[in-house]
């Protein structure tokens, strides 16, 4: 029994020490004032945060902020503007859950610094439509059940809106047969162009149905919109 108590005591101490270390790491400027006279955690190598101003428009609303230079566009949207529609999946540009439209182009907001978007116009899933007035793509995703868990959906929808725009502008893709002709609004084109958005639930066939309906692809399930 004594032994067990000792073990618990030890564990508690470990947890307390861990918490202190975390504090020291998060606030390096006061780390030297930590009890016990411990040296600052990585104090000599952790540079102090730097901030910069950025002014940009999100879903038609202007914002001006002073941000840590490290803040990604995604973290700015979610943590500073509380627009939590855009999701953080992989945080390294592989999954597409963070896809937003910046100055008319879809990008991975996790792989872009907020401060590099001064003057930009950003559209997130919240800016496409509202619960009362859904964007046609949002409505089509609901109609065709283009999701299961829904985590990738905001990125899928922002991408899908851009896909139709890109095909209409004549931007080619990997599956475009003739580079000198306008690309087709086809299922093959849509599938290729959506490859930067991963859906781990595997709702792909319903996602393609939703997009083809909005795009007005001949033979789409549910008919042309």
């Amino acid at each position, binding site marked *: 029994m004594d032994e067990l108590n000792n073990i618990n005591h030890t564990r508690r101490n470990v947890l307390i020490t861990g918490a202190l270390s975390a504090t020291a790491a998060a606030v390096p400027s006061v780390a030297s004032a930590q009890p016990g006279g411990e040296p600052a955690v990585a104090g000599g190598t952790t540079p102090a945060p730097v901030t910069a101003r950025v002014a940009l428009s999100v879903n038609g609303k202007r914002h001006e902020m002073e941000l840590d230079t490290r803040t990604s566009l995604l973290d700015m949207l979610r943590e500073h503007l509380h627009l939590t529609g855009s999701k953080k999946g992989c945080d390294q540009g592989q999954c597409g859950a963070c896809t937003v439209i910046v100055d008319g182009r879809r990008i991975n907001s996790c792989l*872009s610094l907020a401060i590099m978007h001064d003057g930009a116009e950003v559209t997130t899933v919240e800016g496409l439509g509202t619960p009362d007035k859904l964007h046609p793509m949002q409505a089509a995703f609901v109609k065709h059940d283009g999701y299961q868990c829904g985590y990738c959906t905001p990125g899928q929808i922002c991408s899908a809106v851009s896909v139709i725009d890109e095909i209409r502008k004549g931007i080619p893709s990997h599956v475009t047969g003739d*580079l000198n002709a306008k690309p087709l609004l086809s299922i093959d084109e849509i599938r290729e162009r959506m490859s930067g958005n991963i859906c781990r639930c595997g709702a792909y066939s319903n996602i393609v149905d939703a997009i083809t309906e909005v795009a007005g692809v001949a033979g789409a399930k549910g008919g042309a919109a």
Partner: protein
Amino acid sequence: MKAFSYERPKTPQEAAAAVMRVPGARFIAGGTNLLDLMKLEIETPPHLVDVNGLGLDKIEATNEGGLRIGALVLNADLASDERVRRDYAVLARALLAGASAQLRNKATTAGNLLQRTRCPYFYDTNQACNKRVPGSGCSAIGGYTRGHAIVGHSDACIATHPSDMAVAMQLLDAGIETVNPNGARRTIPIADFYRLPGSTPHIENSLAPGELITAVTLPKPLGGKHYYRKVRDRASYAFALISVAAVVQPDGTGRVAVGGVAHKPWRVAAADAALPQGAQAAAGQLLAAARTDEHNAYKLVLVRRTLNAVLIDAKKG
């Protein structure tokens, strides 16, 4: 991510000087590779110099009948450019085979060239990597090497260059225009741009400290049929296991470059000369110096067969 300061200079020379001023400073354009590596603290620049807004985002005709592509031209815009689609289809095809639409909307021409040559062991900070920490060893050697280099590699590094675009640029004999902090300009032929790993795999190209890429030039169009055939584990959005870029003329002569096999896009003059004799001969020249292991020996066969598929297609009317 380590904290960093940030500035936005007005001219290319100012940008070059700004990077020289702070030891370890880096240029940032699209950021799609650099920021990813900064999150993992594989790259830890104390200062970023944003080169967007330097006016390097235009594609223009050169007096020699070719194209000058601004360093900041986005991959998506380069692939969509009418002249590139018509006259340099191999480049458009290579760009469209790379990354995702979201990344191509952010990644730039110079940034694509300068993305790190890398492998999964470079990304895994628990593994030894001479590229990440010079002198620390290479965990990839003797590890799982299915995606690694089979030619031009060294005892220090067996990573492959991941760019599709750069393979087409190599095929087209692109020139890389730069400016240094003193304002001096030069053009580096792409054949002299990338380095093999040797004993210094952390040095990947021949740029001097502070030297900034301002443009990439393409010589006048080659004509012929253009191919970029990429073989990968899934149909889209994956790195090449191997890729073949080729321009084939009606008489069967042409050029070939290969991706996914070396620390840089791989081109051998003797392979171009052997192209009329067929895939067996040309692939043999390309990979004459290959050293493979049990995981990546398949790449020898895959290069030959992919080139053969390209040459069969080129013979069709």
